């Protein structure tokens, strides 16, 4: 599916550029995109290094395992493949909490740690996502947000009478999204397993 989407994005782009007589845009856009990607990854070095250090401390102090124990009853239904008290649970919970509070900087490293822990449990092809990973990403991308910081800032900048008026609707909309994400994920989980 990703192969298909990726192909369509590029092919359509080249066709549109060609027919509108500005084919040179393609190369420029490709390089600009690549440049942004490298910058993003480089920016991540600092954040990830910092949080991996803190997480190692939390693990050594027994906090991650403790959190995993607390979270397991809640998440067991969604992640049946992850064994009891596995540190993956701890990282998943921390990532989701950071997402809910709108702490993007902390959420990404926690999510990557969760992915690494789940990759350790991957018994199939190491290039293929496990069901637990799919479920985690469904939760992650659809996660309820309590404070959409950036858009509130923009509303404030444009003299909104009530910049935070959209917080309630946002919570409602993300909740709907999350419910559907979980439902679709559960459905596809069984669908793909029986194939």
């Amino acid at each position, binding site marked *: 599916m*990703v192969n298909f989407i*990726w192909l369509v*994005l*590029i092919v359509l*782009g*080249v066709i*549109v*550029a060609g027919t*509108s007589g500005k084919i040179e*845009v393609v190369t420029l*856009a490709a390089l*600009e*995109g690549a440049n942004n*990607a490298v910058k993003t*990854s*480089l920016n991540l*070095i600092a954040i*990830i*290094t*910092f949080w*991996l*250090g*803190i997480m*190692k*401390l*939390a693990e*050594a*102090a*027994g*906090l991650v395992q403790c959190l995993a124990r607390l979270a397991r009853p809640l998440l067991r239904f969604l992640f049946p493949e992850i064994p009891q008290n596995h540190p993956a649970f701890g990282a998943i919970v921390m990532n989701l909490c950071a997402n809910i*509070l709108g*702490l993007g900087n*902390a959420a*990404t490293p926690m999510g*990557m740690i969760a*992915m690494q822990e789940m990759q350790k449990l991957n018994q199939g092809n190491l*290039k293929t*996502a496990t*069901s637990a990973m*799919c479920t985690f*990403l*469904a939760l*992650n*991308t*659809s996660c309820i947000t309590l404070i959409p910081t950036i858009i509130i800032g*923009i*509303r404030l900048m444009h003299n*909104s009478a*009530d910049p935070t*008026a*959209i917080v*309630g*609707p946002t919570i409602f*909309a993300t909740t709907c999204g999350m*419910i559907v*994400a979980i439902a679709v*994920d559960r459905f*596809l*989980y069984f669908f*793909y397993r029986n194939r």
Partner: protein
Amino acid sequence: MLYSIITEVSRWIIPLAILFVLFAAVIKKVKVFEVFIEGAQEGFTTAIKTIPYLVAMLMAINIFRATGAMELLVHNLSPFFNYFYFPVEVLPHAIMRPLSGGAALGVATNIIATHGPDSYLGRLVSTMQGSTDTTFYVLTLYFGSVGITRYRYAVISGLAADFTTLVASVFIVNKVFGTGG
């Protein structure tokens, strides 16, 4: 009131969490500096590992956007969405959001600047911006950090969530604020 509590919580939580971790580590007699460095060791490789994945994805998305293919898609989809009484002005945002966070934010800012933050469209696009995620970016980054190239059904559930959030945003903004303003 509730909002200010949440804002305060998110201001304090990271510093307090760090402090809490350090205290817990000291109680367990962990050599804090050494263990921190041991963990941090992997930071560089993890971040660098994501480069080829992000380059591939952002490159494709940027070509799609900069060549005008995205605009064309929005243009061709408008009549269809119009049929369902969906406000076409926010359609570019809905289509860009899963692909490019920056581009979507640009559209949102533009709509807010043109129609005003407290107009129907301003509120709607604010809600849409606040409630959805840059699905493709997140998938690429997270899967990239562990070297996974076959995403299986992760894309479908992510996009299903995005679509639901879009419909829910239109519904709730109509319900709470009405379509006027």
